[in-house]
């Protein structure tokens, strides 16, 4: 690695990486450039260029380190275009931890590459100003909800329509705000239905509290139906996943520490999340503290070892099979951060198989990203739309009228896909929402 001794922040590097976390030999040397990852990579499948393949991106990272390639526009574009879906990790026979590499590369970009002003300002607003702060988020949520319900949104969309570019497409992706916000439930405890067999903490997320309040409610109910006492710690906050993906690692560490404090105060059987993207980062908190602030490593490990995706948790216990029938032809899209980052594929299918009346048709290429990828569909709308179009074609092949997945981001993206398709009657649901419905049909409690 090239030694750059004194690099001022935000300066453009001439050669190699700057101080701090960077893609290193220990991780990329496992890559034998066999290319088995290529067809697993959504951007390679779309563009067919080596620069936008996992093997190519790793090669670029190596060339930056060796000083053959500058940490500049070309490199940044290709690293930015990566969805960080980690499909390549599933494909990789050598066990290259690509997610780590690309996140480290993004950390370097964040520190040493000067982005255009507007982009830089937007990133600052979103990642630094908004996400970490519950109050600000809530305020933004109320504004957005007013905007969506007052008819202003329809007006704006109509106004945006004549404009070239993708403004209208992006506007469509704004999540619907759902009241009451789940933030109200923070700090409460939901008792188990029947015998209490587990005591779990629920990780509620940040934006999800506003836009997926109902999903969060459903998750808590389903857990309760499975003998869980559900604690929703008050002081939890954003998991930092979007920051990690964006390379904003210092802030991610601050967010992580807040959650360590919030969840390690009590000894829970598990820390449950319904968001695959959050879950994968929560499970990888130790990686944030390996090189920086190693004093937190121990706590991070204790925390991460308890984190479970809700489907993983339920499939791992004697889950409640007393469900009402849901007659539907359904298909399941694997969220990337569940299937690739967390390697969870059978758990959600096992749960779905237990729902009476449900006919599950396998979705071809369900392991390929739908284009959501956190805020990717906003930042790289064109690529995201291409991926979504491909996904919807595959959905059409299944003839399913119910699309299931297990991550809020994917829900948003797939709903946008359904709204833009001919088959608008299709429902898009989280696996847990379906379970909630099935339980309520049986026990008669209202969802």
């Amino acid at each position, binding site marked *: 690695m090239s030694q750059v001794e004194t690099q001022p922040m935000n300066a453009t590097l001439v050669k190699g990486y700057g101080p701090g976390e960077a893609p290193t030999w220990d991780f990329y040397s*496992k890559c034998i450039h066999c290319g088995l990852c290529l*067809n697993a990579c959504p951007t390679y499948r779309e563009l067919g260029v080596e620069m936008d393949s996992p093997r190519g991106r790793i090669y670029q990272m190596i060339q930056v380190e060796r000083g053959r390639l500058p940490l500049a526009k070309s490199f940044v574009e290709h690293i930015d275009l990566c969805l960080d879906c980690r499909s390549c990790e599933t494909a990789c026979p050598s066990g290259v931890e690509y997610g780590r590499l690309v996140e480290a590369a993004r950390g370097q970009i964040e520190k040493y590459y000067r982005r255009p002003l507007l982009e830089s300002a937007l990133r600052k607003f979103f990642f630094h100003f908004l996400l970490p702060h519950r109050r600000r988020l809530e305020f933004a949520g109320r504004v957005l909800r007013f905007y969506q319900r007052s008819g202003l949104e329809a007006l704006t969309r109509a106004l945006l329509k004549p404009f070239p570019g993708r403004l209208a497409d992006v506007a469509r992706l704004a999540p619907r705000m759902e009241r009451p916000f789940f933030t109200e439930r923070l700090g409460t405890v939901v008792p188990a239905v029947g015998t209490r067999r587990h005591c779990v903490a629920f990780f509620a997320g940040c934006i999800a509290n506003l836009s997926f309040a109902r999903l969060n409610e459903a998750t808590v109910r389903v857990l309760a139906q499975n003998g869980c006492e559900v604690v929703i710690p008050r002081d939890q906050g954003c998991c930092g996943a979007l920051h990690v993906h964006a390379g904003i690692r210092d802030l991610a560490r601050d967010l992580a520490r807040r959650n360590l404090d919030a969840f390690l105060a009590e000894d829970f059987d598990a820390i449950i999340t319904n968001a695959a993207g959050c879950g994968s980062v929560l499970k990888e908190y130790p990686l944030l503290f390996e090189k920086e602030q190693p004093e937190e490593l121990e706590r991070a490990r204790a925390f991460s070892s308890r984190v479970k995706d809700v489907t993983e948790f339920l499939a791992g216990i004697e889950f409640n099979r007393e469900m009402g029938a849901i007659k539907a032809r359904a298909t399941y899209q694997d969220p990337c951060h569940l299937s690739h980052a967390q390697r969870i594929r059978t758990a959600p299918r096992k749960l779905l198989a237990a729902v009476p009346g449900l006919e599950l048709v396998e979705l071809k290429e369900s392991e390929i990203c739908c284009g959501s990828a956190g805020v990717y569909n906003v930042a790289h709308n064109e690529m995201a739309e291409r991926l979504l179009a491909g996904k919807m074609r595959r959905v059409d092949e299944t003839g399913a009228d119910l699309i299931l997945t297990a991550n809020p981001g994917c829900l948003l993206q797939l709903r946008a896909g359904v709204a833009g398709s001919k088959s608008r009657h299709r429902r898009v649901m989280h696996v847990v929402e379906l379970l909630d419905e099935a339980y309520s049909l049986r026990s008669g409690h209202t969802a």
Partner: protein
Amino acid sequence: MKSFTRELIRLVGRDAVLWRPEDLMLYEYDGLSSLRQPDAVVLPTTTDHVVGIVKFAAREKVPVVARGAGTGLSGGAVTPEGGILIGFSRMKKILEIDLENQRARIQPGVVNLDLSLAVSDQGYFYAPDPSSQKACTIGGNVAENSGGPHTLAYGVTTNHVLGLEVVLPGGEVIHTGAAHWGRPGYDLTGLIVGSEGTLGIVTEITVRLMRKPEAVKTLLAVYDRVLDATRTVAAITARGITPAALEMMDGFTLRAVEDATHAGYPKDSAAVLLIEVEGLLENVEEESDQIEAVCREDHARDVRRAKSNEERELLWRGRKNAFGAIGRISPSYYVQDGVIPRTRLPEMLEFIAGVAEKYKLQIGNIFHAGDGNLHPLLMFDARDEAQHQRVLKAAREIMAKCAEMGGSITGEHGVGIEKNELMPLIFSPDDLDAMRKVKSVFNPAGEFNPAKLLPSGKMCGELRVQVSAGA
């Protein structure tokens, strides 16, 4: 931007030409090694594009190299002499599927496994299954005449290609073979398959599709001695059983595979055979019993049968990811691809063990044992130059032994730039002249994939390949 680039852009569009050095850098390697960059990369979507590019290259007298996914292990898709690299990553349409006639017409960029997946629901598959099948393209398979574990029963790529559309170095387009058996004339299809892009550039392929067998059974035979495992191989064929696949891994390799995939390979064993039989239910049951008996006669410690499809897939995932699994423990290794008569496997294994000892190297063994196709993996640390040299010497010694046994220096990976100087081990100057004659008919100026397949004679048989990290 050079006028060269401008002309290419005029032919195929701005979006389909790569010319900036930071992009070209990404095409200096394939599955083997890093070398010189191309002068331009072009990504055509039609045969007309390819014709245009080829004619332009002929006018400019620059080399043309075709590339599928760049997963090849003999350097077939790199540009040792620069020139134009034609990437087929965007020419990946399945043009026609004709199930009644069990064939499909495809563009060369179609990924091997994607074709099988496209017809899987209807009960068909495309038989050649190289370990890289989830990424490699059928165009690349045609160039290399790729094999795979199941070629034991089904044959290699050439047995499954019915016809080709080919662009010749002058830009002429020809159609070889036919969509059916028995078109009269020289078998140009058979000649072009495996010609590593040196005779023509394939732009369309008609392949045969196979019907899935009714039943498949996978057996894992576990041995305490490697020799016993190799003896079983010949014993099975001698009984008149042709399994669909018959693979061998030695203890070293299977431990790496097990650590990587947790497929259930017993880590304390000296070798395993992975055997698959298929066909009618009755056939599969009988043959499984017969095979188990043979294995036990040859002192197999245990013979397990995969109980579920998942177990079977897991075992195969372990096998197909074996090279990569080795990558976990040794960042650099050199894979060989020798072939010997399968009756001589025991002798060969002892020989390889001797070579390992002589050169103080760790060598893992993974064989398509049923075909006598060996993939010894010679491990080294790329930063240790002396060890690197020992690896090259050891590899050459193993190849020479294959040749001496009446075998071949490559069973499925191709010659490329890796083994062309080894060709004299198995071919006489006259044999090679006959090949040059064929080449001169198709590619007289030598601009199609130069410096590949045939020995240049420059290096006096020395291995000149730079084996890079992991190649």
